[in-house]
Structures are given as C-alpha cells and as structure tokens.
C-alpha cells in the first residue's frame, strides 16, 4: 500500500520545522523530513551538516529547540531514548556505544534483557544474538567480551543490537564506516528484508556508492538546512556532491606523479607474536603513496601498529633510511620519523574531554612552544593554523567531543601530520569523512608525498587505495599476496588476491 502520491500521509515519520541551537550556534534550521514505512531515506551532507543531530532528535537523545514531529499520525516528542524505543524508533549511533566488559549477547540486549522464570534468559539471548550476528556474517561466540573484538565486529554487534530492537523505524548513522564490502552486503540484505516487512529507515553514509544501492530517496543537508530532496536514489553522484558541498568537485583523486625518490622504509619478514601477520616484506620510497588493501581482519591494522611501535614484533626487521629500527614503544618509531594515524579515533586518537587545541598540541609541544613554555596562546595559534589547514569545523577551545565525527577524524589527522614526520601511516584515514573533505584530504596526502614523505594508506575503501597509491600491497590472512603497480592494480586484481 505504497501511496506515495498522497501528500499528507498519516503513516510513517514526519518532522516539520526542526531547529536545534547550542547556545549561539544554530546546528539545524527548519528541517522537514518524511519517511514512509518500507522506505529507506538517505540523509547526506558534509561533516558537521547536522545529520547526527537530526538522528539524535528523532531518537530522543536531545530535544529540538523548535519544531514538531509526528509518528504514524500521532504527535511524537520523545523525552528519552527509552521513550523513543517504546514508540518503536531506534538508532544506531555513529559513535559505537558498547560495553567492553560485557559479552556480545548482553550488549545486544542491554536494557531489555529477556527473562525466563525471573532469571535472565542467557541461553535464549545467546541464541538470538548468534542468529542475528550470523545473518550479518559474524560467527563468533555470543559469550565473547565486546572489548576483545576488532572494530568491524563491534560495528556488527551494534547493528545486531538495532536489528533485535523490534523497532518499526531505524536510523543507521554511518553503519558501514568500519565495514568491508562483504559485511556491507550482509547488512544491506538485512535492510532489504526488513523493508519488505514495512520498516522505515533513515540511512546516513559518506559512501555515495552505497546510496544508489540501498536508498529509495535522498535528502541533502548543508549547514543545518535541507538543500535538496530527490524522489529517487538514481541521482548522479556529481549532483549529490554539488548539493552537499555547494560547489562542483571536478575530481576526487589527485594525479599520481612519477616516482624518483630513494627508499625510506624497508620492512623485511615482519611477523607478529600471535600470528596476525607473518613474514611481510615491502619497501616505500620518498614521495610514494603506498596502499595496503585487504578484507576486514586481514591483519593490516596489526601490521601498521607493529611498525609504529604500538604492538610487539616477534621477528623481522624494519629499516628507516638505512638505519635499523626495533621499536619497543611508539616513542621509538616516532623518534625515527614514523607517525601512525590510528583507525579508532575515539579510543586511540583523541582525548575526548580535552579541547581541540590540547588534542592538536599533544605530542607537538616542541613545535607549539619551542622555548619550552606552552602558553594557552601558543596552543591556540598552533591549533588555529591546523584547523584552517584541514578545514575543521570547530574552535580551538571546544572540547573534542562536541565535534561531529568527521571533524574529529580531521583533528586526529592534523595532530599527526603536524609532527612533520618522514613516514606517515594512515589507517582508514577517511573513516566518516564527507566527499568534499575527502578530496581535500587526498590532496593533503598527495602533497605530503610531493614533499618527499613516504605515505602508507590502509583502507577498506578500495577506490581510495587504488586512486591514491603508486603501488598497492594486498594482505590476506596476515601475509603479503603481492605488490601491484598502480597501472596493474584494479578492483579485480586486488580482490582476487585479497580473498585468496
């Protein structure tokens, strides 16, 4: 009974004139949005456009400053997330919110633990959690503690949590940011299934290729205002990008320039103590962007952390500019000129309660204050320069947790690159970053290479690896499956090796 032609549908969710202000800052201005049952509406926009804020308002996390909502014809003004859930509206938040010390099953059912004879029904809970995780392609014991999972698996737990909510309306805020292709396919299969059962969705993502696959309609936000609405998802990506960033993007990736630098980093036979990677050898030249591809769990992150001194190494050698490096801590690798931009910005990249300025200054004090006196003014000036360079939407004195996810990612990039390293390792550098900013970051990466740095890019976004790199190494189950020149590397040649 999809009667899309009826203008004021009683069914589904509709929001009217939603405005949100934080003090003097207006984050959302007069936003209208309708989602019918069985429909997936994609919500697009730059970092900080207000997508997560819209989601939070609908899910009862924050109250709107002005505006009204109706849900299935009834006025809807949730007072708390619990209230929204009772009405059948659930949210997967952009930032993963799991309890590391509890099991997967308990995380999935937190706040609504099923009981049997007055006791928590552990068996039933485990069974249902396992079923849902299986449908997403994750086959781990539901008794596993969430803290022991890698990022992608945690994201899948988060999704499983949403799928078991018995909601009739779900908001997915960047659910695939940490997922690979296969996991994404599994998620989409689940969304299709629920759509057919009449569930409505808001779907937020910066991966525009996903939009055409999953969305029925597209709504674009810019600076807190609705600037575009497309009745079909078959919109050319170019049009979407223009609506989002307010200008046209002629190209995504910078041109790959010919290589003529000398070798800076050489890795030989590197093996981890627990076998997540073994016998990996490669080398990177000055001015080179070296891509590392692989499916989720291939061991890329572990390998990078080992080179950065964050994890131990069992055997093998690392040579930086001819000098051997046997890092026992990140400080050792940093001293050799290697910086790592970690994949998990919340746990490894930022001190969330501290200001943006303090975060950018961390590790950069010799540059912030060459005289050894870190004055607040020096911190602010240093931060402001980086805020401008990376187009961060925020002020130096704001706490990092006030920033939108994408802007947080930019802060992590900024503070690492400010160290003026010789070698930069970027692990999922554009996780959660909008297309416009992504092009900007690609320019920064190419610029770093042009300055003579060696850049390593690890990404689950294959286009990114292919578009940026001079050479691509493919990792599968912790071993090197071949290094391809950018002239030979394409989706097929890489995937063949990655799934080998």
């Amino acid at each position, binding site marked *: 009974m999809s009667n899309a032609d009826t203008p004021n549908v009683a069914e589904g969710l509709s929001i009217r004139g939603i405005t949100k202000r934080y003090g003097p800052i207006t984050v959302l201005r007069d936003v209208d949005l309708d989602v019918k049952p069985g429909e997936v509406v994609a919500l697009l926009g730059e970092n900080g456009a207000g997508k997560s804020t819209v989601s939070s308002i609908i899910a009862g996390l924050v109250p709107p400053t002005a505006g009204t909502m109706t849900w299935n014809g009834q006025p809807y003004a949730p007072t*708390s997330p619990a209230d929204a859930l009772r009405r059948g509206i659930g949210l997967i938040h952009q930032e993963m919110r799991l309890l590391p*010390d*509890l099991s997967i099953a308990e995380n999935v059912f*937190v706040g609504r*633990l099923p009981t049997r004879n007055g006791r928590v029904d552990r068996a039933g809970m485990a069974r249902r959690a396992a079923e849902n995780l299986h449908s997403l392609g994750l086959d781990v014991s539901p008794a596993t503690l*969430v803290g022991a999972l*890698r990022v992608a698996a945690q994201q899948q737990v988060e999704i499983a949590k949403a799928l078991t909510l018995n909601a009739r309306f779900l908001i997915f805020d960047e659910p695939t940011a940490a997922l690979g292709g296969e996991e994404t396919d599994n998620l989409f299969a689940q969304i299709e299934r629920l759509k057919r059962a009449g569930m409505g969705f808001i779907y937020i993502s910066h991966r525009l290729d996903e939009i055409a696959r999953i969305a029925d309609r597209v709504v674009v936000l810019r600076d807190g205002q609705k600037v575009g609405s497309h009745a079909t998802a078959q919109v050319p990506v170019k049009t979407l990008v223009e609506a989002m960033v307010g200008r046209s993007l002629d190209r995504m990736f910078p041109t790959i320039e010919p290589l003529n630098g000398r070798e800076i980093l050489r890795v030989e036979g590197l093996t981890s103590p627990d076998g997540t990677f073994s016998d990996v050898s490669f080398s990177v030249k000055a001015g080179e962007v070296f891509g590392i591809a692989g499916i989720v769990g291939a061991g890329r992150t572990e390998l990078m952390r080992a080179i950065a001194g964050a*994890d131990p190494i069992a055997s093998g050698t690392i040579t930086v500019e001819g000098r051997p490096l046997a890092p026992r801590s990140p400080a050792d690798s940093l001293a050799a000129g290697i910086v790592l931009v970690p994949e998990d910005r919340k*746990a490894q990249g930022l001190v969330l309660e501290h200001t943006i300025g303090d975060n950018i200054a961390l590790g950069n004090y010799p540059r912030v204050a060459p005289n050894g006196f870190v004055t607040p003014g020096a911190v602010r000036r240093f931060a402001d320069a980086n805020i401008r360079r990376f187009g961060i939407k925020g002020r130096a004195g704001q706490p990092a947790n006030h920033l939108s996810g994408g802007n947080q990612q930019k802060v992590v990039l900024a503070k690492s690159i400010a160290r003026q390293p010789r070698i930069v390792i970027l692990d999922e550098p554009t996780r959660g970053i909008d297309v416009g900013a992504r092009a900007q970051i690609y320019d920064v990466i190419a610029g770093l290479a042009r300055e003579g740095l060696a850049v390593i890019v690890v990404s689950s976004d294959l286009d990114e690896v292919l578009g940026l790199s001079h050479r691509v190494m493919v990792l599968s189950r912790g071993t090197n499956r071949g290094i391809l020149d950018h002239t030979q590397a394409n989706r097929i040649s890489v995937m063949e090796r990655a799934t080998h």
Partner: protein
Amino acid sequence: MTVQTKHPAGAVPRFKVDLTGGVWGPLIGLIALCVFFAFKAQHFFTLQNAIIIFDQVTVYGILAIGMTLVIITGGIDLSVGSVLAFSAMTTGWLFSIVGMPFVPALFCGIAIGGVAGLASGLLVTYARLPPFIATLATMTITRGLANKYTDGNVVSGWPDALNTLNTYRHFGVITATTAFFLLLVIATWAFLKYRPAGRNLYAIGGNPEVARLAGIPVRFYLVGVYVVAGGLSAIAGMANAARLQTSQPYDGLGYELTAIAAVVIGGASLSGGVGSIGGTLIGVLIIGVLNSGLSQIGAQTYDKDVIIGVMIAAAVAFDTLIRRRR
C-alpha cells in the same frame, strides 16, 4: 581509575575479564594463605577457627556487599562505616533513651541507614556530585550526628536476644549473624548474575550513557544502590552491636577502606562495570584470614602491617599475572 582497563577496542587486549568470577588469582591466594597458616598455627585448620573467621568478617562482609553494588556502578561509598554507627546509635537512642521497644527501634535504625544512602544517592544523581565527595559529606555528617544522640556516650544494655544472634550456634556451627551474611551473599550473587536489574548495574558502570540510551533508568538505579548500601550498613551496625553488646559513635571508623579493599582485591574495578560478589567474598576472607592468622602465629604487631601490605599487593598482582597469561 586503573590505566590498564582503558585498553582500546580493536587492540588485542592483554587479559580477559571474567564477570562471573575471574577471581582465580585471589582465590589461589586465599588457599595459599590457608595452607600456610594451617602449617604454622597449631589450631588454625579447625572448624572452630573457620567459624571464628566467618564471625570476624561478618560486619565487614555485609558492608562489602553494598560496596560491591556501588563500585559496579562506577561509584564509591565512603560513608558505610559512619552510617553503621549512625544507625546503631539511632536504634540505641530510641531504645534506651526514648524508650521505644527494641524491634521498632531496630527497624527505625535500618530505615535511617537507607535515608543516609538516599541522601548520598540524590547528591550523586541530582546534585551531580562525584560519589567520592557526596559520600564523604554523608560520612562526616552521619558521624557527627551519631555523636550527638548520646553526646559521645556508649549505648549498652541491648536486649539479650540481640547478643544471642551472634553467640548462639545453630546446629552447633553457625550463628544467626553469620548465616544472615551468607544468605545476603547468595542473594546478591543471584541478583547480580541472574536478574535484569543486576545486569543493568554492570551496564551503568560500564558506560552510563550507553545504559541511558538503552532505556535503563540510570538515576533510579544509582539512587537505589546507595540506599541499599546504606541499609546494609545499618544491618552491619546491628550485627556489630550484637557482637560487641555495646554501640558507640566511633564504631566502624575506617571500615570503608577495608570494605573497598576487599571489593577491589576481589577483582572489581573502581572505574565501574566489573566486579562480582564471589570476588568480594574472597577479598573479605583474604583480609580476615590474614588478620586472624597473623595474630595466631604471634606475628609482631608492626610486622603484621608490613606482611598484610605485601600479601594484598601480591594477591592482586598474581591475579593480573595469570590473567595476562591466559
């Protein structure tokens, strides 16, 4: 509060936290202590002595149960020792000065313990004080009030029935206070392990915002645990009165530290979300066995302090060690 609990998601964590216990380290430590004392102290390894040790730890143990709940939610309760005295003095004052019959006076005492907990809970949730400060305030205030009732004097002349609770050995083995303590342990264990409300406490301690998003009434639970901790402190106060046959305003001085130590030795984390009653019981027994055993082998008073310090550090370090191995 510990550094090592903050391991980031996605990194290979150094050890696994086992909620249902994870108390192997302390348990092994406890057994080692018992074996050691059994060889060293002639009368240590007897039923009689086991009874004595349980009797000695009952008051601390009851406090530690409430403390476990509070610590699991990520809080701390410094007021338990003072509330113990405050409630006992309330009962004592009502009974021996106001002249109320004993049983209603007893219930008033327990209720006032709950009220003290309520005050802490409201300060934590609504005035948003850090639990350390909120319960420090309650601790200071209740200690002052406990003194005011009788101007610092001792209450004696409790009914004999009260003393019997601590002296009469049912089945020749267990006193009513010890039995009650063990029942409380079992009930709280079952609550924490099997009841949704118990599991919710772990979620709250793990991340209160996640808990709130999941629809758990966080404030209600938080106020609840402080009220329960207050009520249990009051009950501990009566167990103490039964044991000593007198009550005085300085009863329970410093017991909060022992209770917290027992809970942390038992594997709980002061940053919340981790802990178990089984662990707490072991923590309580380690402290009890150490104190009693060292007295019995005639250790010098000052050496005792040194040995206890070393043993506590060793028991917990040992636990970390075996967790890291696994």
